[in-house]
C-alpha cells in the first residue's frame, strides 16, 4: 500500500500535472472567496474544462479545488461578514466581530492554519480508514443516523444564546423554512404556494447568504465608516498562529467531527461545521465571548469544514454514495472516464485513490499558503470606508445567490431572508439556530420516517441508539450538576426588566407569530405523513412566539443593544433599495440594474465625486460581465430583454 502511495506521489513530479493541480487550487480559492459560492460551484465550473484531460489530471484538478474552497471562503466570512460558502457561516459569527475589532489578521491566520491542519488530518484519516471504513459505514443503520441528527440539533442547543426563548424561536423558524419542498414521507410538496421554484425547497447558499450576508452588509453600510472600528492595522499574524498552537486539541477535535460528518451520508458539510462549533461552545467553561469574536469558535469549525470533504470521499469512493452535491459531481467525473467507485476501486484503481488523497493534502498546504500570502493586502480592506466596497459586495452576493438555481426566486429569497436576518440581528435574536434548524430538519425527518417504517418501535432497543442517547443527554446532566453546585447570584433575573418596548423587536415578534399561524393553517391541509412535523413545529412556534409577544409588549425582553433610529432608517432604506434591485432586475436585467445600484450607492452613501462614481460603476459592470462569461455564469436577462 505504501508503495502505491509513493507511486501516486510521483504523478505530481510532472510539471504539467502540478500545474493543473495549481489551476484547480486557484479556481477553488476564487470561487471560495466569492460570497455564497462553495464546492458545488467550484466543481461544476471546472467540470467542462476537466473533461478534456486524462482521468488522473481531472481528478487532481477537482480534488484540488474541493480541498481549498473551505480555506478561502473564510476570507469573505471574516472580512465582510457574508459567508464565502454556506459551510463557513460560523466564521461570520466569530471571525467577523474580530475583524470589526481590528483583529482581522489574527482571525485569518488562525483560520488558515486550522484549515490546513484540518485538511491534512482529513487526508491522513482518509488513508488510515480506507481498509476499515466499509464495516464502519455499514455498522450504522437508519436508527443511529437519526440519533446523530438529533445529536446535531442538541449541539445547536448550546448556541441558543442567553435568551433561550428567542433562540428556540429562531431555530423553529429555520426548521419551518427547511420544511418547504418535497416531504420525505408522502408524495406531497409542502408550502410551495404553487410555485415551481419552491418545489425543491430554498437552496442552502441563498439562506446562508441572506440570513447572515445581506443583514451584515446592510448593517455595515448603514453604520458608515470602515469594517474595523478601531485604529491601528491588525498585526496579529503570529498571534493567530499562537492561538492555534494553544488550542491544538481543538483543531484535532474539529477535524474528527468533520471527518465523521463527512463519512455519514445523513449530515453533510454545513452540519459538520456547525456541530464542531456547537461542540466548542458546549465544552468551553467561559462562554462569555462566543458570538462576539472568540478565536476558539473559528479554529474548530475551520478545521472541521476542511476535514468534511475528506471524510465525504469515503462513502463516495467505497460505496458510490456521495454525501454531498460536490462529491456527486466527482462521481460523475469518474464515471465519465469509465471508472466506477465501489468495492473494486481499491483493487482496480488504487493509484487513483492515492492521487486523490495526495491532491487533497498538497492542495490543503498550497491553498493555505496562497491565502496567507494574499491576506495582509485583503486585511487592509477593513480600513477602507465600507460604502466604497458595499455595491460590489452586494452585487457579488446577488450573483452568487442566483447561481443556486438561476431563478428570480433566488434573488427574491435572498432579499427577503436578508430583511429577516437584519431584523433578527437588530432585535438581538441569535441566527445560528436558524441555519442549524434549516440544515438538519431534512435528514432528521427522513431518517425518523425510515427508522419508524423499518423497525417500528424496536429501534429503541438497539445498543448504538443507547450509546448515542447517552451522548445526547450527558451535557444536560453535566450542566445541571454544575448548576446545583454553584450558588446562584441574586441579581440574575430582574436585570432585564428595563420596561422598554423596542419597535423592531415588536415588529419581528408579531411577524414571526403570523408566519407560524399561517404555517399551522397550511400544514393542517396537508395529507397525513406530510403534515405531522410541520404542525409540531408551527404549534411550538405559536406557543413560544405568543409568549414572546407578551414579554416584548410589556418591555420585559428588550435586546441589550438598541440600534439608533438613524441607523434603523438607513438600514430600512437599503433593504427597500435591495427590493427595488430585484424588481428592476426582473424588468431590465441584472447588468443594468447592478450598474444603477452601484451608481446609487457610490453617490448617495459613499458620496463619491460624480465623475469618479461613473467610472467606478463602468469598471464594475465590465468586470461582472467578464467574470460571468469567464466562469460561464448566467445573469438574469430581464423581461424587456435589454
Amino acid at each position, binding site marked *: 500500500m505504501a508503495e502505491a502511495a509513493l507511486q501516486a506521489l510521483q504523478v505530481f513530479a510532472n510539471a504539467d500535472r502540478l500545474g493543473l493541480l495549481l489551476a484547480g487550487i486557484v479556481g477553488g480559492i476564487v470561487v471560495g472567496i466569492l460570497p455564497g459560492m462553495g464546492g*458545488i460551484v467550484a*466543481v*461544476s465550473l471546472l*467540470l*467542462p474544462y476537466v*473533461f*478534456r484531460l486524462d482521468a488522473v489530471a481531472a481528478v487532481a484538478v477537482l480534488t484540488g479545488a474541493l480541498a481549498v474552497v473551505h480555506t478561502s471562503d473564510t476570507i469573505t466570512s471574516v472580512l465582510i461578514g457574508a459567508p464565502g460558502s454556506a459551510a463557513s457561516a460560523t466564521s461570520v459569527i466569530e471571525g467577523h466581530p474580530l475583524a470589526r475589532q481590528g483583529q482581522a489578521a489574527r482571525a485569518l491566520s488562525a483560520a488558515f492554519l486550522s484549515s490546513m491542519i484540518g485538511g491534512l488530518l482529513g487526508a491522513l484519516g482518509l488513508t488510515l480508514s480506507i481498509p476499515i471504513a466499509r464495516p464502519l*459505514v*455499514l455498522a450504522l*443503520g*437508519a436508527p443511529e443516523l437519526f440519533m446523530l441528527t438529533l445529536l446535531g440539533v442538541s449541539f445547536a442547543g448550546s448556541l441558543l444564546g442567553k435568551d433561550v426563548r428567542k433562540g428556540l424561536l429562531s431555530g423553529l423558524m429555520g426548521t419551518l423554512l427547511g420544511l418547504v419542498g*418535497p*416531504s*420525505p*414521507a*408522502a*408524495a*406531497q410538496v409542502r408550502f410551495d404556494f404553487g410555485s*415551481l*421554484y419552491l*418545489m*425543491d425547497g430554498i437552496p442552502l447558499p441563498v439562506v446562508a447568504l441572506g440570513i447572515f450576508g445581506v443583514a451584515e452588509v446592510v448593517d455595515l453600510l448603514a453604520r458608515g465608516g470602515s469594517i474595523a472600528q478601531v485604529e491601528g492595522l491588525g498585526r496579529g499574524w503570529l498571534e493567530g498562529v499562537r492561538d492555534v498552537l494553544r488550542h491544538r486539541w481543538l483543531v484535532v477535535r474539529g477535524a474528527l467531527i468533520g471527518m465523521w460528518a463527512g463519512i455519514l*451520508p445523513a449530515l453533510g458539510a454545513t452540519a459538520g461545521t456547525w456541530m464542531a462549533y456547537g461542540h466548542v461552545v458546549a465544552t468551553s467553561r467561559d462562554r462569555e465571548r462566543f458570538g462576539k469574536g472568540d478565536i476558539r469558535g473559528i479554529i474548530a469549525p475551520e478545521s472541521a469544514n476542511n476535514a468534511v470533504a475528506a471524510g465525504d470521499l469515503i*462513502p463516495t469512493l467505497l*460505496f*458510490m*454514495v*456521495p454525501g454531498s*452535491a*460536490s462529491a*456527486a*459531481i*466527482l*462521481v*460523475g*467525473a469518474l*464515471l*465519465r*472516464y*469509465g471508472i*466506477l*467507485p*465501489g*468495492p*473494486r476501486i481499491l483493487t482496480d484503481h488504487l493509484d487513483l485513490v492515492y492521487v486523490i488523497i495526495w491532491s487533497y493534502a498538497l492542495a490543503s498546504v498550497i491553498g493555505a499558503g496562497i491565502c496567507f500570502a494574499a491576506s495582509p493586502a485583503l486585511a487592509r480592506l477593513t480600513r477602507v470606508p465600507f460604502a466604497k466596497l458595499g455595491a460590489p459586495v452586494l452585487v457579488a452576493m446577488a450573483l452568487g445567490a442566483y447561481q443556486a*438555481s*438561476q*431563478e428570480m426566486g433566488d434573488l427574491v429569497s435572498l432579499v427577503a431572508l436578508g430583511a429577516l436576518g437584519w431584523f433578527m440581528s437588530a432585535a438581538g435574536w441569535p441566527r445560528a439556530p436558524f441555519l442549524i434548524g434549516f440544515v438538519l430538519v431534512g435528514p432528521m425527518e*427522513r431518517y425518523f*420516517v*425510515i427508522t419508524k*417504517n*423499518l423497525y417500528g418501535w424496536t429501534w429503541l432497543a438497539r445498543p448504538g441508539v443507547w450509546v448515542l442517547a447517552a451522548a445526547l443527554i450527558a451535557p444536560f446532566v453535566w450542566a445541571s450538576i454544575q448548576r446545583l453546585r454553584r450558588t446562584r447570584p441574586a441579581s440574575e433575573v430582574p436585570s432585564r426588566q428595563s420596561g422598554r418596548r423596542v419597535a423592531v423587536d415588536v415588529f419581528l415578534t408579531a411577524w414571526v407569530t403570523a408566519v407560524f399561524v399561517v404555517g399551522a393553517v397550511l400544514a393542517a391541509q396537508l*395529507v397525513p*405523513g406530510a403534515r405531522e412535523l410541520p404542525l409540531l413545529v408551527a404549534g411550538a412556534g405559536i406557543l413560544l412566539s405568543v409568549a414572546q409577544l407578551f414579554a416584548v409588549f410589556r418591555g420585559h425582553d428588550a435586546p441589550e443593544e438598541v440600534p439608533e433610529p438613524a441607523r434603523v432608517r438607513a438600514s430600512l432604506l437599503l433593504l427597500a433599495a435591495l427590493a427595488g434591485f430585484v424588481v428592476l432586475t426582473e424588468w431590465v436585467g441584472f447588468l443594468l440594474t447592478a450598474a444603477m445600484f452601484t451608481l446609487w450607492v457610490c453617490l448617495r452613501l459613499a458620496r463619491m465625486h460624480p465623475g469618479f462614481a461613473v467610472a467606478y460603476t463602468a469598471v464594475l459592470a465590465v468586470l461582472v460581465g467578464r467574470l460571468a462569461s469567464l466562469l*460561464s455564469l*448566467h445573469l438574469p436577462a430581464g423581461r424587456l430583454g435589454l
Partner: protein
Amino acid sequence: MRALAVSLLVAVALAGTAPAQTPYYAGKAIELLVPTAVGGATDILARFFAPFLERHIPGNPSIRIRNMPGGGTLLGMNWFAANAKADGTMMLASTVSSQVAYILRNPAVRYEFRKLKAVLVNGSGAVFYASPQTGLRRARDLAGASGLTFGSLTPPGVELPALLAFELLGVQPKVVFGFESRGPIRLAFERGELNLDFQATFVYASQVLPLVRQGKAVPLMTLGFIDERGRMVRDPSVPDLPTVYEVYQQIHGLKPDGLLRWKAYAGLVAASWTYGRALWVPEGTPEEALRDLRAGVDRMTADPEFRRQAEQVLGPYPVLRGDRVEQTLHRNMTMTLDVVKYIRETIRTKYNQHI
C-alpha cells in the same frame, strides 16, 4: 505572370469550397439545456455527448451546457417549452422524471413531447436482486414469498416500474418510502435493513456483483428492455437474467400481453428506462439543421473512439438516432387514460401515495 498563376490557383481553390456548401452550423453555437444539477446522470451523459457532437455535426458548432435544476426537472423543461428558439441553436436533454411526469399527466407539466423533435435517444436497464436470507434462489420464487422489504424514494419516479412489476407478479413486499436516492437504499440492503432491491445495470455491475460473488446477494431478474417494435427482450447488459415478462410466464403460465397491469408496466419501462434519456430540438427547427444534427449523430456513432468510450460510459445500450425511434417513443409516452388511472389508483390504494 507567376503572380497571375498563383492568384488563379487561389481563385480556383476558393471556388472549390463554394459558400453554397457552407454547413448550417458553421460558426454557430448550440445551447444544451439540462434540467438537472451538474453531476447528475443526465448531466454527465450530456457532457459525454457534447464533445463528440461538436466534432461530428457538420460545421462543428460549439455546444454549451446550461443547467437549470428545480421543480423535479419541470422548471427547466417548462422554460425550454416556453422560450426555446426553433433555429437549431437550442437543444434539450430530457430525463426520466420529466418523461414520467409527462406520462402521468402531472398538472405542472407545460411541455409537450410531440412538439419536440428527437435528435438522439439512449437508455439503460435495471436488475432486481435479493438477500440470501429471504430464501429466494430465482425470480419465480417471488410468487408467494413473504417478509420482503423494499426501499423507495418519495414520490416514486424511477422506481415506479419496480412497484408495478411487484403488482404484475403478485409480490407483496413491504415498501419503505423516504430514502433520498438509490445509493443509501443499497447501503440499507448491505446492512440487512432491506432484503429486496433493484439498481440500474451499471450500478449492479460495479456495486452488487461483488456481493453476488461473496454470496451476499442473489440476482433475480431484469426490468427488461423494450425493442423498437415494442416487444420486451432481455437486457443487453445482463442477458443471462430473465425479464419480468418471462418471470410472469414462469409463474402464471400465460403471457401478460393485453392486461392493463402489463400495459402500465411496459409503458413505464420504455419511457423511463429503455428510452429514458433523449436530446430534443423544438418543432419547426429548419430542415437543414435537422439533417445536419442527424448526420452528426450517425457520424458520432460510427466513430471508433466514441464506440470505445461509450462501451465504458453507456454500457451496451445503443445510441439511437432520434427520427428512427420517434414513433416508438411517442407511442410509449402516450398512455391511454385508463392506464394512467390504473397507475395512480394502484399507488394510492396500495401505498397511500397520491401521485
